[in-house]
């Protein structure tokens, strides 16, 4: 395994791991406080805490894809592409984990007062998780593009395709920063649910507007990868 491939594995598991760690720390600390008062809501609090773990699972998945096929990576361009793949899932996982942590903490606070807000709070907590899913999608397309997924023989990757892959992953990582703000606005929206439950429909419009940034990032990344022949 060359250094670049190693860095791509580290990026995938490391950054997403930090995101999950921070997210779990935030939700778990609020959960601990809540179950001291309302132990019967342990299960609901656990749901939000577990949600923060998903970025690292996606990071782990991409790491495994790369590690299991590392022996067939033997040129610089493939390694550069894989670096893009690792960064995509890693950095989006970091932002996603942070966002889930912030929104999840607010959601646990809300359900400690009103259990019936579980479903609506869950939606606001799931929104930041979308970011790591977009990152994962770009990662999968790149890994598939270099021939490491689906048992295909590794394709020959030219330098233009390799750098386009890296660029497309930079785009999804930068736009993935919206995951943090999705968490922040989601937390505010959850607080407003406590005041007026009917605000759900309107709040979600505002929160989803932020997510659109990442979706445009995903769209551009996918189009770039298509242009580079990875799709």
């Amino acid at each position: 395994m060359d250094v670049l491939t190693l860095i791509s594995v580290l990026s995938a598991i490391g950054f997403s791991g930090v995101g999950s760690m921070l997210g779990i720390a935030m939700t778990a600390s609020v959960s601990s406080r809540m179950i001291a008062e309302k132990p019967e809501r342990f299960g609901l609090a656990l749901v939000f805490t577990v949600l923060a773990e998903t970025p690292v699972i996606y990071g782990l998945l991409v790491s495994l894809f790369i590690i299991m096929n590392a022996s067939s990576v033997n040129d610089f361009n493939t390694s550069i592409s894989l670096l893009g793949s690792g960064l995509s899932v890693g950095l989006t996982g970091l932002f996603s984990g942070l966002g889930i942590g912030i929104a999840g903490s607010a959601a646990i606070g809300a359900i400690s007062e009103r259990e019936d807000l579980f479903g609506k709070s869950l939606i606001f907590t799931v929104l930041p998780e979308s970011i790591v899913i977009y990152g994962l999608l770009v990662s999968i397309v790149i890994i598939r593009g270099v021939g490491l997924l689906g048992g295909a023989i590794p394709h020959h990757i030219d330098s233009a395709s390799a750098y386009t892959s890296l660029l497309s992953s930079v785009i999804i990582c930068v736009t993935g920063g919206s995951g943090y703000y999705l968490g922040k606005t989601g937390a505010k929206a959850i607080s407003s649910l406590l005041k007026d439950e009917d605000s759900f429909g309107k709040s979600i419009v505002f929160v989803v507007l932020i997510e659109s940034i990442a979706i445009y990032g995903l769209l551009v990344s996918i189009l770039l990868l298509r242009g580079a022949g990875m799709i």
Partner: protein
Amino acid sequence: MFKPARMKKVKLLLPVEQEDRFLKEVSKLGILQVTAVERRPSNFSTDINVIIEKNNLLNLVKRCDAILNKLPKEGIITQLIGKSSRIECSDEEEAEIYANAQSILNNAEDKLNKLEKLRMLKLSTRKQISLKISSLLKENFIVLKRINKTDYLVILEGWIKKSDANKLIVIIPESVRKECLVLLEDSTDLKNILKVKIATLIQNYSIIDEILRSYGIASLSEEEEKVEAKKVEDIEEIIDVDLLKQQVTLLRRVLLRKIEILKAKENIVRTSFSIYIEGWIREKDLEKLVSMLKKGYTYELSVNDPEKWEEPPVALENPPIIRSFEIITSMFGVPGYRQLDPTPFLSVTYMMFFGLMFADVFDGILLLIFSLLLYRGLGSRSHNGKMLSELLIMISISSIIFGFLTGEFMGGVVKLPVLWFNGFEDPMYFLQIAILLGVVQLTLGLAIGFLNELMAKRLRNALEKLAWLMLLYGSIIVLLNYLQYLSGDFYLYFGSATAVSGLILLMIANLRNLIEVTRLVSNIVSYTRIVAINISHVGISRAFTLLASPMIYAGGFFGILTGGIILLITHAFIVFIESFIAFAHSLRLHFVEFFSKFFEPMGNVFKPLSLSW
């Protein structure tokens, strides 16, 4: 099925003496929602005593809750899959419990106080003993608690300072040390003090005793310890926690049933002789009400269709097979009485999305087993628990079906024939399918929105929905022409004209729509998450299966057993995490992308008077 149940407005006049009987019987049927009387006849009034009684009962319920919160609770696994022990009682028993409510609560609170004292006593006893040991060890080398003697052995038990631990070994003469076993362990209550056990042969006891005495021995008064323990046992004998819990739970349910009746009575107006009730009933239940009234009631009944300005409560009415999906609709809110119910559409697309995201025969079967256990446990405890477990059964079946269609079993490690396509092997085809599903669902959402607006006779809004459809399909035709799936200038011009006309109509309807256009793109791209979640599920499933397979292939009883256990544990983890992710993201696609096109939860849920246990 596509619209909420048809409702009828009921106005009923009854003699006062038949009020209690009527409320009890109608609550058993669970068909009538009693509402506040809108135009009260001048000589009718609300009974203020009902409000006072209701508040008194609510206070008693709070006392019940406080008692139940202090009692030990069931574990989460028991709550989820343990079968509920249903508590019910006859009318006579219910009346007796209600009459004795105060004494039951006083008795329970008294017992709880005793339980609290017991806890304090246990704490203080342990604390006192700890303090005594600490003080004795200041002046003595060892504190002995107990000396057990048999024909051959002597075992000394006690405490020693941590700093004296080495000394204890050294002071025992070498000749005896070989026949002596010394065990030291940390004491949970005492800092810097170790628990000690010295076991030796009976002939060495006198030597050890002499040495220890020369360094200083103190013994803890066993009698004192026994007296304290006896006090604790006395109180434990008095309190049967399970019985106490059962009594208070039953009383709580009886009180809640009474409160339900009183809430209905609050809405009823009365004179000294008669009562007047207004409410809503499902059209199909009207016959039941009439036949009930015909059995010995003196009544005057008037039944009307809802007026245009009235907003009747909403009862969703779907076939049993998709009824569990109402829980998803209700999570967002119920539709208005005159709106379409999205549940039938949602049940198809939700199962499809979940199935595609969580496509695996093995994991689907595991989820199905868990759902069936949940149905037996949580389902027997509450109506919502039953609906949720039924929903899980439906979506687990969907994941098994899509597992077969995509040939997935344990992440593809076990080969199955691929009946449709395999998303892991061909993600690009899967992406096209996901986008197509997105377009279909958005079209459905906009079409339902169009119909909803037409039914409400809001033509301008209906036109807006039509304009969105024109923009969507015009753009798709142009895109397909660009990608050369549709060749010829006709498609380019036709598509462009449709899209531009749609855009102009949208701008005329509301300039804000211009900003919303980009959301249509993001809505469609959002459906690609189906691919990502499916591939992550298959990937993780494959990795975990490969982890266990070397042991299974190695053969032998223990190899297969260990491999099987690892396989079950890891896949149980996948079922827990990945099914939840698939569930939540399917929910998101419906709430954010689908519902935003047509659904405004404007309705109030139909809550008939019902006295369930």
